[in-house]
C-alpha cells in the first residue's frame, strides 16, 4: 500500500474515523498501534518479525539501561558517606562503561541486522574483488537478501532512542505496545521523518480531540504532497528511468541529455521525498500529531553546509546528535587539534583556525561518509557521501580564506546578486553529488561529469530528450515538459513566499483569505492531481489512435 494509492487514503479515513469515534481518549493510541500493525502487515507481514525484534530488543535494553543506572545511583547514594571521591569516581566510571556496553549491545544487534541485510552483498563482493586482485581464490557467497519495509528509518529512530536513554534524556518506555507504536507509526514508516522520542512519543500516546483546523490543514498538506509526488516526481521519473534503464543505455546518451537528466533528478528527488513527507505529516496532523518538517527549501541554500541543514533535516539532526557531536568532542579528535596547535604551523593565523576546526571538519567527513553508505550499498553512494563530506570539510577549513576574498573584493554579503551566486554555486555542488545517485555505477558517474564538460550538443540533446522519427525520446512529450516547468514555477513561488516570510505556514496564510479564493485554489489543486497525476496503468494514446485497424 503506497502513500499515493486510493487504498491508503481509505485506510487513513477508516483509522481517523475509529480514532475520533473511540470514546476513551486515553486509549486512542491503541487505534494508531493497531492501524500501524495492519499497515505494516499489509505491506510486508512476512518481515514484521524484524520490526518486532528491533522494538522489543530496544525497549528491553532501554529498561535494562535504566535499571542499571538507577541501581548505580542508589548504590552511590547508599555509599555517599562511606566512599571517598576517588571511590565514587571509580564507581561512576565503571557504571558508565557498563552502560556503554549495554547500549553497544543494542546498537550492534540492530545496526547489525540492518548492515547484514543492506550491505552484506556489497561487502562480500568488495572482499571478493580485493582477494581476487591478490590472487586469493576464496569467494564469499552472495545471498538473496530482502529489506524489511522501513528498516533504515525504524532502526535509526530506535537507536536514537537507546542513545538518549543512555544519556538519561528521558525515562525508558516500559510499555511494549507504546514503544512498538513509536517504532512503527504508520505515516512515517516508509520514508520517515526519523523522529526523536522526546518530540514524538508524548504526542502519540496523548488522546487528541478532533480539531477541524488541524484536520483541514492535514488534508491540505496531503493534497500538496500528492501534487508533488504524482504530478511532478512520478512524471519526471519516467524520463530519468528511460536514461538509467541499463548501463548501456545510460552510456549512449550525450552530455546534454545527461545534464538534463541530473537536473530533472534534482526536481524529482525533491518532489518525491518532500511530497511523501508532506503526506506523512498531513496524516499525522489530522490525528493531532506534529512531525518535524524534513525539508526547508534546500535549493535556496547558500552553502553545502546549509543545504544539509535544509535537506532531510531529520537524518541530518540524527547524524549530528549521534555521530557528529560524539566524534567532534571525542578524545582522538581533540588531541589531534591540540597537537596541531602546538606545532609551528598551528601558531600561525591559518594554523590556529585549522587546528580549531579540525575536529569539526573530520567529523563532518565521517558523517557524510556514513550518510553516503546509508543511501545504499554501492561505491557510487560512497562517492556521493565523500563528495559532500570533502566539500564541507574544505569549506570549514578554508572559511577565513573565502571571507578574506569576499572582503577584499568589497562584496556586500546581502547583495541579492551575491546571494543568488551563492545559491547557484551550492546548487551546482549538489548536482555533482546527485550525479553519483543517478548514474548506474561510480564509473558512470565519473563519465557523466566528464561529459558535462566535453560533450555538450544542444541539437543532439533535444533529439534524445524529445525523440524524432528514429529515436523514441525519454517517454515524455513536450507537453509534459511544459507541465513540469509550470510546476517548478508554482513550487518556486510558494518557496519564495515561505523564504521571505521566514517559514510562514502557507495554510495559515490561506485561512485568512476569502472562502471563495481558497475554494478555487484547492479546487485547482485537486483537479491538477486528478488530471495531471501519474497513476493507474497508464494511457497510451498511440494504442488507440495509431493502431489503425
Amino acid at each position: 500500500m503506497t502513500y499515493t494509492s486510493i487504498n491508503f487514503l481509505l485506510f487513513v479515513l477508516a483509522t481517523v474515523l475509529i480514532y475520533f469515534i473511540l470514546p476513551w481518549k486515553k486509549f486512542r493510541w491503541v487505534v494508531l498501534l493497531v492501524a500501524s500493525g495492519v499497515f505494516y502487515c499489509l505491506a510486508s507481514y512476512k518481515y514484521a518479525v524484524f520490526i518486532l525484534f528491533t522494538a522489543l530488543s530496544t525497549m528491553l535494553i532501554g529498561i535494562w539501561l535504566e535499571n542499571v543506572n538507577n541501581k548505580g545511583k542508589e548504590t552511590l547514594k547508599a555509599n555517599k558517606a562511606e566512599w571517598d571521591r576517588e571511590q565514587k569516581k571509580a564507581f561512576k566510571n565503571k557504571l558508565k562503561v557498563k552502560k556503554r556496553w549495554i547500549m553497544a549491545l543494542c546498537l550492534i544487534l540492530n545496526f547489525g541486522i540492518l548492515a547484514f541485510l543492506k550491505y552484506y552483498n556489497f561487502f562480500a563482493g568488495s572482499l571478493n574483488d580485493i582477494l581476487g586482485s591478490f590472487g586469493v581464490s576464496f569467494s564469499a557467497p552472495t545471498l538473496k537478501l530482502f529489506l524489511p519495509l522501513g528498516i533504515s528509518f525504524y532502526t535509526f529512530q530506535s537507536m536514537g532512542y537507546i542513545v538518549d536513554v543512555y544519556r538519561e534524556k528521558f525515562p525508558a518506555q516500559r510499555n511494549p505496545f507504546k514503544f512498538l507504536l513509536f517504532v512503527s507509526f504508520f505515516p512515517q514508516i516508509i520514508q520517515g521523518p526519523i523522529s526523536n522520542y522526546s518530540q514524538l512519543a508524548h504526542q502519540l500516546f496523548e488522546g487528541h480531540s478532533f480539531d477541524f483546523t488541524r484536520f483541514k490543514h492535514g488534508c491540505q498538506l496531503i493534497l500538496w504532497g500528492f501534487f508533488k509526488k504524482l504530478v511532478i516526481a512520478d512524471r519526471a521519473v519516467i524520463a530519468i528511468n528511460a536514461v538509467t534503464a541499463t548501463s548501456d543505455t545510460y552510456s549512449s546518451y550525450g552530455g546534454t541529455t545527461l545534464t538534463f537528466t541530473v537536473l530533472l533528478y534534482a526536481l524529482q528527488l525533491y518532489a518525491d521525498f518532500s511530497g511523501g513527507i508532506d503526506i506523512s505529516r498531513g496524516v499525522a496532523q489530522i490525528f493531532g500529531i506534529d512531525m518535524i518538517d524534513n525539508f526547508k527549501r534546500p535549493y535556496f541554500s547558500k552553502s553545502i553546509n546549509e543545504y544539509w541543514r535544509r535537506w532531510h533535516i531529520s537524518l541530518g539532526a540524527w547524524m549530528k546528535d549521534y555521530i557528529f557531536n560524539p566524534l567532534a568532542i571525542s578524545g582522538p579528535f581533540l588531541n589531534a587539534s591540540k597537537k596541531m596547535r602546538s606545532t609551528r604551523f598551528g601558531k600561525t593565523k591559518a594554523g590556529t583556525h585549522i587546528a580549531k576546526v579540525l575536529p569539526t571538519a573530520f567529523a563532518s567527513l565521517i558523517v557524510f561518509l556514513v550518510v553516503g553508505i546509508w543511501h545504499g550499498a554501492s561505491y557510487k553512494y560512497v562517492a556521493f557521501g565523500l563528495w559532500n563530506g570533502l566539500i564541507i570539510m574544505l569549506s570549514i577549513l578554508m572559511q577565513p580564506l573565502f571571507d578574506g576574498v569576499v572582503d577584499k573584493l568589497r562584496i556586500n554579503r546581502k547583495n541579492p546578486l551575491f546571494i543568488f551566486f551563492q545559491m547557484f554555486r551550492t546548487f551546482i555542488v549538489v548536482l555533482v553529488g546527485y550525479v553519483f545517485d543517478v548514474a548506474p555505477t561510480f564509473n558512470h558517474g565519473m563519465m557523466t561529469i566528464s561529459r558535462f564538460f566535453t560533450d555538450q550538443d544542444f541539437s543532439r540533446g533535444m533529439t534524445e530528450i524529445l525523440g524524432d522519427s528514429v529515436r523514441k525520446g525519454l517517454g515524455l512529450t513536450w507537453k509534459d515538459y511544459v507541465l513540469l516547468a509550470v510546476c517548478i514555477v508554482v513550487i518556486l513561488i510558494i518557496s519564495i513566499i515561505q523564504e521571505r516570510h521566514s517559514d510562514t505556514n502557507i495554510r495559515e496564510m490561506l485561512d485568512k483569505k476569502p472562502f471563495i479564493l481558497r475554494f478555487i485554489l484547492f479546487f485547482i489543486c485537486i483537479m491538477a492531481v486528478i488530471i495531471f497525476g501519474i497513476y493507474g496503468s497508464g494511457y497510451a494514446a498511440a494504442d488507440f489512435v495509431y493502431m489503425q485497424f
Partner: protein
Amino acid sequence: MKKKLYISRAVKLISFALVVLMLTYLLQAFVLKRNDNNTLRMDGFFVEDKDSLDVVVIGASDVYAGFASPLAYDKYGITSYPFATMSAPPQAVLYQIREVIKNQHPQLILVEVNAFTYKDNDLPTEPSHRMFIDNVPRDEIWREYIEKTFPEDKRLEFYFPLIKYHGSWSDYPWKFKFLATDLALRQRGYSLFRGFKTVANEFHPTGPVYNDQVADNNETMPIGATGEKYLKEMLDYLSENNIKNVVFTRFPHIIDKDSFTRFKRTNAIGNMIESYGYDFINLERYGSQEGFDPNKDYYNWDHLNIYGSEKLTHYFCKKFIDEYGVTPSTLTEKQKEGWEKSVNYYYMIYYYSQEMIKRRIKLGKTDNGGTTVSEDDKSIYTIEKYARKTHPELLDE
C-alpha cells in the same frame, strides 16, 4: 454560536465536495475519456431512437468501412447501423448482440465473424476491448463483460475510467475534433455518418492474390482456442434463447499467401455456425463472383473502399429484403429528416473520396495509404468544403 459555525463548515465542505465530484464526473464522462471514431460510432448507435433500426451489422473495422447505412436507407429505405469497433475481440461479439437486442430489436442482425478468426497468439489486446466496452452504457451487460474478461485487479479502471484516461489531457487540442463532434451528435440525436468510415484509396495488391480461385475451396483449419470458445458460447446463447434473426457473414477481404490460413479458419467458423442452423454468407470465398475486384474495391488488404462498400451495401440490402423479409419501418418526419441528412453526408463522403482516389492514382499511389474520412470535425469540415464547390445541393445552406 458553535452550532452556527458547525453548520457553516458543513455547508462549505459539502458544497466543495459536490463541485469536485461533479466536475470529476463531467471530466470522466466527456473530456478525459477515450474519444475517437469508435466512440462516435458507439454513441451514435445509443442515441438512435429505440426500435428505429431495421438491421444492425455487428463486427469490427471491416463492418463500418464496408456497410454504408445511409446508402441502404437512400436506395432501399432500410434503416441500419454498423455496431462495430476497431479489431473487436472474440469475447465482445455476444455482448454486442445482447446490447443490440436490448436497445433496438431489429428485424435482422448481421454478424461479421472477423473477431473469431484471430489466432491465439495474435488476439486483440486491452485497447480493442476498451473501444467496445468503454462506450457501452453502464448496464448489467457492461458489468458482466468486465467481470468475465478482466482479472479483479484490472476492473477498477473500467468502473472508474478516469484512472485509465486522465493522461489523455495531452491529446488536446488535437482531440477536440472528436469531443466537439460527440457533443454535437448527442445534442442532435443521431450521427451524421451513421457509423460509416472510409479511407480514400484504391489499393492495388503487389503480390499474387487468390480471390478468384477460392470459391470452391472448402479447406479448413482449426480456429484459435479462444475464438472457438467464444464462438461456441455465442451460438449456444443464441440457440438457448431462441434468437433466430441472426445471420453470419464474412465480408470480402483480399486473400494472399499470408492470409490464406485465415481463409481456412473462416471456412471452419462457417461450418460451426451452420451446424447450429444459422446462415453463413462467406464473401471472402464468393466475393469475386459477386463482383468485388481486389484491384479496385479495397483501400487495403482487409477493408473495402467507397466503391467496394457501395457494392456490398447493395448486395446485402437486396438479400435483406428478398431472402430475409426485411421491410423498411415507418419513420417519423424527424427521423426521416435525420436519415436524409445522413444520405447527403454519405454522398459528400463519396464524392470527396472519389476525387481523392483519382488524385492518388494520378500520382501513382495505390499502396496502403490515403485520406481517412470519419465523423469528426476535421473530416466534416473537409467534405463540406469540397461539397460547397462541387455539390452545393447536398448542403443545407
